[in-house]
């Protein structure tokens, strides 16, 4: 369907006023109110009055459209009507009875046509608004879809950190001749890790046991690489293994502890992962005895701690019932604590 180009507002106003003036002239053909000059003049004055006041209100930054337009129509239009009445109608009539009848008549007409103009304007505005709203909705949906795709990609990149991958490959390369069975075990751990990363990013939910198995693969590899510098314990009560957990909540916390706490510490340190459930709350702690986070810890753009990502996942899975908090340990290092509703 071809769409008509919208009229510029001022031209639309003139058109509307002309139509009203001519309509009144035709309606009153044969009586003194049928004068074309009078009807057009009054109509233009009322229209220009409303339009002028509306422009003025917009200029001074009147915030609400809903109030502005009725106000402009009533005061501006009424003012224009009064002016017309004083200019043209009053000089013609001198009988007070006739005068008040004419005044009433003009008032009714002003109210009627202002109302008509108002309804017309509102309908047009509502239509335009609906159109922009539709366009905005469309744009928002597209943006969300794009962000989702980008987010998945970023999440994937963040999981398989290139330094981790290439250093691990280099280690396997180094071990193949000297310690072939260790090389083989390490390759198996890496394979499991990569596979579960790829599968998991598509899964909606996993279990605490599975998630910690993934963490264990990661730590096995790192312990081979870092040697004495990394010690770790995982404390998971048997009964909690089957607890459901959104994927990729835990892994980023462990990677942070390694990358920011233990790897940069020349002496290395200890990582401790602990899960416990009590009174409806599942609590998982990842604590390291590493460098800790300095207030201005240098974070490379795009390589943040991934914590905002974890928080977003918490909100989408649990609303406001879950939390992630980070604390500095008095003995050095950082403790990350996840608290989830235990269902």
């Amino acid at each position, binding site marked *: 369907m071809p769409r008509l180009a919208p009229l510029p507002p001022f031209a639309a106003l003139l058109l509307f006023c002309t139509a009203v003036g001519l309509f009144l002239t035709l309606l009153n053909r044969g009586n003194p109110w049928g004068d074309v000059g009078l009807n057009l003049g009054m109509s233009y004055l009322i229209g220009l009055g409303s339009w002028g006041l509306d422009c003025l209100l917009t200029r*001074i*930054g*009147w*915030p609400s459209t809903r109030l502005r337009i009725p106000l402009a129509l009533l005061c501006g239009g009424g003012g224009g009507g009064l002016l017309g009445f004083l200019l043209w109608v009053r000089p013609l009539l001198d009988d007070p009875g006739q005068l008040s009848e004419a005044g009433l008549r003009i008032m009714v007409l002003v109210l009627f046509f202002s109302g008509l103009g108002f309804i017309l304007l509102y309908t047009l505005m509502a239509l335009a608004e609906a159109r922009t709203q539709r366009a905005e909705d469309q744009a928002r949906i597209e943006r969300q879809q794009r962000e989702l795709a980008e987010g998945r990609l970023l999440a994937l990149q963040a999981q398989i950190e*290139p*330094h981790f*991958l*290439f*250093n691990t*490959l*280099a*280690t*396997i*390369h*180094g*071990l193949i001749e*000297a310690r072939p069975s260790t090389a083989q075990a390490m390759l198996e751990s890496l394979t499991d890790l990569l596979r579960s990363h790829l599968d998991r990013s598509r899964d909606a939910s996993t279990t605490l046991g599975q998630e910690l198995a993934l963490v264990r693969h990661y730590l096995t590899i790192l312990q*081979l*690489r*870092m*040697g004495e510098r990394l010690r770790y314990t995982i404390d998971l009560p048997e009964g909690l293994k089957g607890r459901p957990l959104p994927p990729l909540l835990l892994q980023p916390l462990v990677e942070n502890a390694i990358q920011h706490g233990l*790897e*940069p*510490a*020349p002496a290395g340190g200890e990582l401790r992962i602990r899960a416990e459930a009590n009174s409806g709350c599942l609590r998982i702690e990842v604590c390291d005895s590493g460098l800790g*986070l*300095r*207030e*201005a*810890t*240098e*974070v*490379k*753009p*795009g*390589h*943040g*701690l991934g*914590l*905002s990502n974890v*928080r977003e996942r918490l909100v989408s899975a649990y609303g406001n019932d879950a*939390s992630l*908090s*980070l*604390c*500095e340990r*008095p003995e050095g290092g*950082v403790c990350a604590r996840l608290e989830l509703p235990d269902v």
Partner: protein
Amino acid sequence: MSETTAILAEDEPILRQQLAKQLAELWPELAIIAEADNGERALELANRLRPDCLFLDIRMPGLSGLEVAAALAWPTQVVFITAYDQYAVPAFEHEAVDYLLKPVTSARLRQTVTRLQRRLASATPAAPLHALVEQLQAALPSTTHYLRWFKVSKGEEVRLIAVEQVNLLQAEDKYITLHTQEGAFLLRKSLTALEGELEPDAFWRISRSTIVRVAAIERAQRQLSGGYLLQVAGLAKGVKVSRAYAHLFNQS
């Protein structure tokens, strides 16, 4: 001619042993006089022992390989080793310094050895590293020195609040209230002192007592007074932008 000496600096023991082994096969005359598992030790050893060549891993605890190279007191032939630095590798390509990517293959290491032997034989002076290191540090994703964490006491604990968690900072008396999605935290600091530590594009001062995180602004509404009223994520009440800061929101 005295024998050629080298120091290996790499934090992972298996990779260090592997490099030593590969070098022994390709260049039996090379004497590896020391090994270091962190940057500080590498710098100390290099300055004390003054080797002919220095193999430096870029990512090491303590000092990074680049920092070690910049701080060397004695010119030496440096070979950088990196697992993955998409920004640094192109910078290496143009320089007289060699670099190796992990895993280090024997074929590639042979090239490095040939190049080093040629340079040492012709007594080519070691390339000056300061300019290169500066260039590399600029090429690597820039690190920010802005505040990343607020440390706030909550009971017995010292909580770490990432700056991205904070939607609004409001000064009251001697404290600043940090409004986050998880609640409010008190910080003992002055707003003006803090303003200088926050990333200027991410946080805007909007009145004498308020700083807002730009990404947390949901809506800005112009007021008759000439200021603005902001809807900020996580806050039910609107936040006023005083006229002095309204220019931040004015169009064009």
